């Protein structure tokens, strides 16, 4: 790779800043108010960010979510338990299957049902597949936010193979709606395991490609190292989770530490990656390592897939006994949980949906204070949120 001079870098930064300036709404004596979104392409959906600037520096920032609020917590109250998975699929739409899992596990906990071992393993495979489908796109999209378009095409190319595998099992590329209370809707199709292992090799190659293309790139390093640093205590106080928390040096992964019995992570040998820096680079790097780790997990699960039924004995009409249960799993975006309050009806009485991006993005007003305008985009990209996961 040809070396990039400092002048070229500066010119690049200026060009990015000029692009951003198009969005400037008003200019006053006290500085400028920069309005990013709700339709700005860098915000992964319709999120609005208002930043007050002093020159090129942000002095105050606020986030205005809600453009996509669909009121799932209200809608869930008028649905039966099996109907809820259809809804919650749409929360984090890139890793849909992972959204269903904590809700199903909470309902299973209340009903005191345990899915058979094979169902737990296949569930975990699909759970990690959802992570791949989600994070592979993040790794590609990361380049786009920094002006490098090529990684995005690689990401879309290789993610399609993951989606094909999900589709082969569930029938849906994006919204599987496959998890059931007490097991899964169906078993794996014939020949699926061999295909999946081939896809895992492709994804590992993709990770290597991205690492050489992006992580070794000087511009990428300059624009992410030391930018948007979140110390561990701030990350914890804001409830940041997933790779964002581990990039701040907190060694906490619900797959290892959650004690979740409905998934098979306990049978697996995997490493939880952390990074001490807490900057944008660390967040991206941890996600890259996690993608590799997820492919290894799927390989292990495919090798040791137990036989047996995929569905426990479940009553035909599902009534969940009265009680309260909270189950939280390590979803692609971070810790996602459902606080299910049941009164013994066909549907839940109240469901509090704890989505990862809501907490992850609530740190943005704190984080953007003092950063420079072009860094806003890299910080938002590295925090990695899905709008549906903020607004629910």
């Amino acid at each position, binding site marked *: 790779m040809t070396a990039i001079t400092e002048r070229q870098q500066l010119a690049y930064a200026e060009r990015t800043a000029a692009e951003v300036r198009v969005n400037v709404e008003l200019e006053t004596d006290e500085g400028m108010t920069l309005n990013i979104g709700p339709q700005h392409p860098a915000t992964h959906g319709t999120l609005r960010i208002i930043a007050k600037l002093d020159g090129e520096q942000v002095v105050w920032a606020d986030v205005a*979510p*809600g453009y996509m*609020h669909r*009121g799932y*917590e*209200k*809608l869930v109250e*008028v649905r*039966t*338990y*099996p*109907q809820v998975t259809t809804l919650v699929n749409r929360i984090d739409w890139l890793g849909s299957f992972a959204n269903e899992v904590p809700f199903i596990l909470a309902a299973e*906990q209340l009903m005191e049902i345990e899915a058979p071992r094979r169902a737990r393993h296949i569930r975990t495979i699909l759970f990690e597949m959802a992570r791949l489908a989600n994070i592979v796109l993040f790794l590609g999209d990361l380049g786009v936010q920094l002006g490098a378009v090529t990684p995005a095409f690689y990401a879309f190319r290789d993610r399609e193979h993951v989606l094909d595998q999900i589709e082969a099992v569930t029938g849906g590329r994006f919204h599987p709606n496959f998890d*059931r*209370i*007490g*097991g899964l809707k169906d078993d794996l199709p014939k020949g699926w395991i061999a295909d999946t292992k081939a896809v895992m090799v492709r994804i590992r190659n993709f990770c290597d490609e991205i690492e050489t293309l992006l992580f070794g790139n000087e511009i990428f390093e300059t624009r992410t190292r030391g930018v948007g640093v979140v110390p561990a*205590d*701030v990350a*914890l*106080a*804001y*409830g*940041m*989770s997933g790779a964002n928390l581990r990039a701040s040096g*907190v060694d*906490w992964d619900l797959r290892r*530490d*959650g*004690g979740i019995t409905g998934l098979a992570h306990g049978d697996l040998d995997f490493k939880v990656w952390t990074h001490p820096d807490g900057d944008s680079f660390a967040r991206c790097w941890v996600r890259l390592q996690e993608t590799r780790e997820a492919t290894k997990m799927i390989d292990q699960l495919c090798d040791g897939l137990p036989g047996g*039924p*995929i*569905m*426990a*004995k*479940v009553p*035909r*009409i*599902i009534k969940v006994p*009265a*009680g*309260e249960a*909270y189950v939280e799993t390590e979803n692609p975006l971070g*810790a996602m*949980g459902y*606080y299910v*309050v049941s*009164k013994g*009806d*066909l*549907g839940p009485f*109240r469901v*509090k949906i*704890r989505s990862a991006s*809501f*907490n992850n993005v*609530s*740190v943005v007003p*704190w984080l953007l204070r003092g950063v420079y305008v072009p860094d806003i985009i890299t910080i938002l990209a590295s925090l990695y949120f899905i709008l549906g996961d903020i*607004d629910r």
Partner: protein
Amino acid sequence: MTDETTATADDAEAPEVDEVNEHQLAVLTDSLGDALVASHVAKGALIVRVTREAWATAHEIARERLGARFFDFLSAIDWMPSPWGRYEDATVDVGLIRPDPANAEIVTGYAGGDTRFQVFSRLVNVRRHTAVVLKVDVPDDDLSVPTITHVYAGANWHERECWEMYGIAFPGHPSLRHLYLPGGFEGHPLRKDFPLLARLVKPWPGIVDVEPMPATAEGAESDTDGEGGDS
């Protein structure tokens, strides 16, 4: 008046976690004293109800003495049964239901409660992997709970959401304004007496599918929710 309604969990199920939770509960009881109203330990979860005056203190204690530095979430529950009914319970389209005040008996969940609204939060110790759920009663004549933003900065957005969705104020919050809803929105959507308008103006399309067949009026009913039990 520590009204201990501790339900002992099934010991054979997860004895280790319960031991941990009993220890956590002992620490909280020791620090909070009378401010701890009720508690519940079951299925690896610890739920503690505190008085409104001790709400912020309880969070400080949870952070300092239980090491629960991770702020998970804060939200509220409206324990009043929905006066609008639940449409999925009906096998045919029931149309508009008028609120029925006689059907409004409030039954609260774990760790009890005396009021219609309860605010609850969950805090996690990420080193020892323990968690605690704190609950507080919110009296109807004064819908407010002290803020905890000075303890956990992340509570900011959660309290704003709770305020607009339930109408519960958080005195001391730095800027209690709308998060999701537009500024002039009237009402509090997550309250049970707030009607889900989409359901009131249009019948639930799913009901059309489960309308009993003329010949087998009995058997068709059970197809509504049988999706999960096909094994």
